């Protein structure tokens, strides 16, 4: 084999696979799994395995190949930061690394220092915490670099906690460190952790996460949502490509589907990017589709939002016309995820509710009670749903009917 071919093969082998769940709401950031089908008829027999976690957390699990990565935080001040790697097959612990927070760890009691989700490029795992500590490790747990963004920039914190998850694009890790005081977004070199760029952002607490989208030239862009609206930047430079300035929520995040941005703004506002530098076209806006804490989910020609009480709303993605509402058992913080056309919705009491949205008015087809508080958004990979609480991680992969 020629060397260039070998190099290419290695590169492909080390990159994220289609079935991997690389970040908050999956590889496309839309909450939709494209891999093997998930079971839809869940009961207690559906739990493939469950393992104890050494600390609290809301962050979503990241699944790369045969490994499941989870972050957690422990200690009276939540200042012990954990990155854990479990074997996908049986949940056994493969390795664990702990760090001491270098920034502030104070949060609202409902959340913890391990609220933001980690991200992966398939070769490395990047973990960030509410203290704005950020660690890069290879898949075997070797430390590649460490940053203490809360120490570097000591007023970059939020007394209610930080929750913005990471995205990685074009070799840059994008960290939204936005708060009432020293508010910024940074592009960190994924290989070294050094600042590639750092831009000032609105001085307002912001719990949303960045979203990935494609520009007109096919290059990856990053949408940064804030109270001011949405700013779309180049991941390599942080340079603004376009912006939307009509305000947006600081809790649920933008969802990108088919090149359109579903922005929690004035209810729900759908944007279609125009030429670079030009403002986007507003396709529709609906106050009826205002999301709660959960971010929107777009499945085919339908868009779904959930309010905090558990009312799932479905609208036509083309015009925003609400088609139906389904009352689930709430309350909800986690964003629904989808596989095989079904929605997997986990409420704050740990009740997994599987919804078939193809039925008129939507139908709950099964439930599984995990009996623990679940605030974080679940992940999907290898034909399984991965749910974490403050104390446990579950792999749910068996269909009770099988």
């Amino acid at each position, binding site marked *: 084999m020629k060397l260039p071919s070998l190099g290419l093969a290695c590169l492909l082998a080390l990159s994220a696979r289609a079935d991997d769940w690389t970040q908050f709401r999956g590889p496309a950031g839309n909450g939709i799994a494209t891999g093997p089908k998930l079971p839809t008829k869940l009961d207690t027999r559906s739990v493939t395995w469950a393992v104890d976690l050494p600390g609290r957390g809301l962050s979503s699990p990241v699944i790369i190949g045969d490994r499941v990565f989870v972050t957690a935080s422990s200690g009276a001040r939540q200042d012990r930061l954990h990155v854990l790697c479990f074997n996908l097959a049986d949940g056994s612990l493969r390795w664990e690394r702990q760090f001491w927070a270098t920034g502030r760890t104070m949060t609202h009691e409902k959340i913890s220092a391990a609220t933001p989700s980690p991200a992966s490029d398939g070769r490395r795992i990047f973990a960030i915490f509410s203290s704005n500590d950020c660690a890069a490790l290879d898949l075997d747990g*070797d*430390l590649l670099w*460490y940053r203490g963004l809360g120490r570097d920039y000591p007023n970059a914190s939020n007394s209610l906690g930080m929750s913005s998850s990471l995205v990685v694009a074009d070799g840059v890790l994008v960290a939204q460190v936005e708060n009432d005081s020293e508010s910024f977004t940074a592009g960190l070199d994924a290989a070294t952790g*050094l600042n590639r760029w750092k831009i000032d952002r609105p001085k307002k607490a912001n719990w949303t996460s960045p979203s990935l989208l494609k520009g007109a030239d096919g290059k990856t862009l990053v949408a940064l949502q804030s109270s001011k609206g949405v700013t779309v930047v180049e991941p390599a430079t942080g340079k603004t490509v376009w912006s939307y300035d009509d305000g947006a929520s600081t809790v649920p995040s933008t969802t990108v589907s088919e090149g359109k941005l579903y922005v929690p703004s004035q209810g729900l506002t759908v944007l279609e990017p125009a030429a670079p530098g030009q403002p986007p076209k507003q396709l529709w806006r609906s106050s009826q589709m205002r999301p709660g804490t959960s971010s929107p989910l777009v499945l085919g020609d339908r868009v779904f939002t959930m309010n905090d009480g558990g009312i799932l709303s479905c609208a036509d993605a083309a015009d925003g016309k609400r088609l139906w509402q389904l009352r689930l058992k709430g309350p909800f913080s986690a964003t629904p995820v989808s596989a095989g056309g079904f929605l997997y919705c986990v409420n704050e009491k740990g009740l997994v509710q599987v919804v078939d949205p193809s039925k008129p008015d939507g139908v709950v087809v099964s439930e599984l009670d995990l009996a623990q508080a679940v605030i974080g958004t679940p992940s999907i990979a290898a034909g399984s749903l991965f749910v974490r609480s403050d104390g446990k991680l579950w792999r749910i992969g068996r269909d009770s009917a099988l």
Partner: protein
Amino acid sequence: MMAHRPLHALCLASALSLASASAATPAPLAGALRELRDVAAEGKGNIPASAAWKHVAAADAKAVPAILAAMDGANDYALNWLRAAAETVAQREAAAGRALPVAELRKFLADVKHHPKARRFAYELIARAEPATARALLPGFVNDPGNELRREAVQGLVDAAAKNVATDKAAAVAGFRSALGYSREADQVDDIAKRLTDLGEKVDLQAAFGWVTRWKLIGPFDNTGGAGFEKAFAPERSVDLAAETDGKTAKVRWVDLVTKSDYGFVDFNQPFKELKEVTGYAYAEFWSDKARTAQVRIGTDNGWKLWVNGKFLFGREEYHRNTEVDQYRVPVELKAGSNTFLVKCTQNEQVEDWTKTWQFQLRVTDDLGTPIVSAK
């Protein structure tokens, strides 16, 4: 914000630690440890550290005490690089069935000159290898200079006292009182105080926390639209306790406030009523019996700035998000004799009931959290 050790102390400790590490460890490992210790703010040193980390993490179990010793005087970034390396060695050796050097780790743990975090990690490694040994050692840490070890040991006292509550109240009270004397973490102090109160005991929370209680207050100055946070009103230029100056709507002058709050709250709403979009200042004199390094610990859900002896130290513009005891820890150098604290406290425009608070709490402690009270 976390406290930093003073720079001169850090440099001296680093030099001593590296000298001892170099003497005891093979040269290549000592060099790699030095690379890990050289990391600094904004990722400085990350690139050489990444290569050096692999070298350190490839060491065998015998190297763990040397890796822990390299934490002495290290900055907080370096501590994490070193911890991850020591953890990697420990997990690999354990998986291979090779023993950790427990006797060496015990020696390391016993030496309180080592970094408290390194000693805590040594304790955890001992606990993994020999849980019974760790359990037996724990009660000896009630007066430890490291918070994590101390907290867990104090919790042992609390748990033991709690078992006596139903059968021997006097023993329970004595146990809780002992625990209270040793505890240095605010939430644990609070918990113990509540247990004593539940038993009908009086607890002087002001003394337990060591609040600064005697203040002079002046206000209101303007903070319309948040502009007052950056505006330097008269007290920032000079503190003249006898002077009258222009306030937001009228002339204002300094007034006395002695807080009676268990939690030391200096409440601007008391003298100035419930106002919005205003700025207040509080001034206190603090007597230290010697020149010393300390921390000023502040809790507030208002905007704030702090000057000690006329020097600005830190400030934060955040309103009504959340507050707790020791929310902010600001390192400070106290002079022998009189020191002055000036606190600016700003109130914003929100009108909800929970945004009425216009207050702060302040205490002076050592790095561990031991209250330091004014000598006068």
